[in-house]
């Protein structure tokens, strides 16, 4: 790690509530005023999911991988998911907007860059997001000196509705998103490699005291917007 990687400036400055500048073309997730929500604030079981791909044969450094990944982040996602990067780039405190389509519904949400350095960055989710927690993107050299790109989630479903969704397939959709992302990252460096997936249940208990998170559910809001949009024109 370099000196720059150990600076307090790598962290987002303290803010109680989010402020979001919605990029042109994005569906506004209405996140302004919402608080951030970590894995301790969610409802469901807590999971650590680690996805990795080895960039075997690529002449790259972890710093190079992270720089390219940040610059092309949205392009590495599946086609039905759109990430509008913050205008200032993936920098601590900036908020990116996500529009994810599933059939006629477009879920609009976002994430804040909690932390960023030359070898990693972390998103933290807002209240009402599908899951509450952190997603950390990083790159390192493994024991064989091969550069590895990694996505690691520490999450729990935000509320009972999303927890049910995870049980009925949303968890696998989540897995496919990050496996697709890592395949795209590898492909960007001309590497054809299959990602590995490791899933660990960190906390089996559901946090019933957070049942009320359901009132902040962004999917309900997005669903309502999708249903009424044909009647009001766009």
């Amino acid at each position, binding site marked *: 790690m370099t000196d720059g*990687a150990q600076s307090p400036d790598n962290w987002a400055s303290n803010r109680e509530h989010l402020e979001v500048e919605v990029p042109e073309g994005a569906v506004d997730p209405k996140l302004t005023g919402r608080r*951030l929500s970590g894995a301790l604030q969610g409802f469901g079981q807590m999971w650590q999911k680690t996805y990795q791909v080895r960039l075997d044969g690529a002449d790259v450094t972890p710093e190079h991988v992270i720089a390219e990944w940040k610059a092309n982040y949205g392009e590495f996602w599946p086609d039905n998911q759109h990430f509008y990067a913050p205008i200032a780039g993936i920098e601590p405190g900036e908020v990116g907007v996500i529009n994810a389509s599933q059939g006629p519904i477009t879920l609009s949400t976002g994430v804040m860059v909690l932390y960023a350095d030359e070898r990693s960055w972390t998103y*933290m989710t807002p209240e009402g997001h599908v899951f509450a927690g952190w997603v*950390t993107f990083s790159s390192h050299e493994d024991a064989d000196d091969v550069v590895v790109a990694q996505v690691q989630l*520490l999450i729990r479903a935000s509320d009972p509705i999303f927890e049910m969704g995870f049980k009925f397939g949303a968890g696998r959709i989540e897995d496919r998103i990050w496996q697709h992302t890592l395949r795209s990252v590898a492909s960007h460096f001309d590497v054809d490699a299959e990602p590995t997936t490791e899933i660990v249940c960190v906390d089996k208990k559901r946090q019933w005291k957070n049942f009320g998170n359901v009132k902040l559910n962004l999917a309900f809001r997005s669903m309502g917007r999708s249903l009424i949009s044909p009647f009001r024109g766009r």
Partner: protein
Amino acid sequence: MPNQPLGYTIEEGDDSMVVRLTGDIDGSGAAVFREITEATQGPVILDFTAVGFINSSGIALIVGFLAATRAVHQPVSACGLTSHYRHIFEITRLSDFMDIYDDETAALAVSR
């Protein structure tokens, strides 16, 4: 500046166990936190006085530790955080789940 490996010592008091952390807390400290989880019981005070840098992977380890201790109703508090990392604990809302004190004396006074 190269990373300082994470280390720890544990002091068993009458009312709580004080875990004195040293070095930097990043993803490489996973095994250390597993050891601490296994080695502690009852109320725990995490002393960050001798911790240098914490990155987001390090925060994730602390979250995992908190989840494990909460599962067995083991209260955890923290002390010795710099003002910067106090802010980080507030942003990440770790502070919702652990009391934070200026120093070990203050933390021990409350645990008695």
